[in-house]
């Protein structure tokens, strides 16, 4: 017990040291540098994922077809181990940012497909019929009626994906890339747990900030009448 407290104290002191050293804050390999790399991976993967997943989920939900498919994509997608995908694509495509992006995109797609599908399906049929009775075309109904109503759920899907990608992007460091995973992998290699803790804290803070950012964004783009 006493030993654990000691370990914890040493760990915390190490973390404070790390954060207070100016050399860790500027130049290549510094904290801002790793944060930038990390956020870039996340941004690219989430955007590519959204560009693939949202049209599929929204299209299936709008037409009301392929529900089983949309739900099962999510189940199977969850089962795919991101760690395995990164190494597999790494072996196939070689060193570079591609393995990481491929794995993160695969991770990002399922929650977005399922949530946008469910969001579109949950639009009240009476509302749909009213729009039809007003003589709206399929596109008009999609853009002006169904999408605004489904938006909170669609955004919830994007948010889930972004947060997951944010915490999984740490694995990029395993195949030699940057990002905040560097602190984890390097720290593990030299048994410097303070460094690991630095990485963990930074990623956790980024993930929580992503949550908050999306919560704000969701509020911003939800139609006034629906709030």
């Amino acid at each position, binding site marked *: 017990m006493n030993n654990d407290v000691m370990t914890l104290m040493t760990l915390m002191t190490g973390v404070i040291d790390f954060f207070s050293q100016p050399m860790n804050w500027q130049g290549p390999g510094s904290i801002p540098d790793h944060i930038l790399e990390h956020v870039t991976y996340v941004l690219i993967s989430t955007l590519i994922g959204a560009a693939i997943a949202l049209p599929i989920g929204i299209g299936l939900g709008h037409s009301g077809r392929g529900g089983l498919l949309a739900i099962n994509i999510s189940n199977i997608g*969850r089962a795919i181990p991101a760690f395995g995908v990164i190494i*597999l694509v790494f072996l196939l495509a070689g060193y570079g940012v591609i393995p990481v992006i491929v794995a993160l995109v695969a991770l990002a797609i399922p929650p977005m497909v399922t949530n946008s599908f469910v969001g579109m399906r949950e639009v009240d049929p009476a509302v749909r019929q009213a729009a039809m009775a007003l003589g709206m075309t399929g596109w008009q109904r999609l853009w002006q009626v169904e999408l605004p109503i489904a938006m909170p759920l669609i955004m919830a899907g994007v948010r889930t994906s972004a947060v997951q990608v944010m915490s999984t992007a740490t694995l990029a460091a395993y195949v030699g890339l940057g990002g905040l995973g560097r602190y984890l992998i390097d720290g593990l290699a030299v048994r410097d747990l303070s460094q690991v803790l630095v990485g963990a804290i930074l990623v956790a803070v980024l993930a929580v900030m992503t949550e908050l950012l999306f919560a704000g964004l969701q509020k911003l783009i939800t139609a006034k009448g629906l709030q």
Partner: protein
Amino acid sequence: MNWEWVASNSHQITAALLQHVQLVGLSLLFGFLIAFPLALMAVRWPRLYGPSLAVTGVMFTIPSLALFILLMPFTGLSMATSLIGLTLYTLLILFRNIVQGLRGVSPSVREAARALGYTPARRLFAVELPIALPVIVAGIRIAAVTIIGMVTVTALIGQGGLGQLFITGFTLSFATPLIIGFVLSVALAVAVDLALVGILYCLTPWQRGVR
């Protein structure tokens, strides 16, 4: 694919698979043992719900790799390190679904049970839990499949079930073990998922015939 490698290493593959199953099973069990009483309390005292969700939610955002490494000074390169990390990850999903399931029980059903003279404990086990079962099992399914993928990461601290095969593939630059580990991991997730659906079907005979 190099089938010779598979044949000569079948021992290692089986061991990795068994360890994987063991880690997933135990962490789900522990996760449920913690999430269930927590959920009961959150249903009874709604004020607890927000904070509990926030705490389990933050645990879910910590990268699995970081969590596993950070537990090492306290629990070493042991199975406990993996188990604690994985259990923490199941909590958010299990807690949320158990609460949602119990909250979905209609008040009139609750009242009827009370009117029949059911004690609170009997009401919970004979009425509320069976009705909440589909939502609870949905949570267990998500948690199980998520954890099956996540266990592979613990291979980095030497306790990773099928993830061990990923590392072997990486260090040897050799795809066969990687593909074997990958296929087994996905197959395990599908099998567990189907098994849970089957168990739910057997436990909820009253749902059959309803559409």
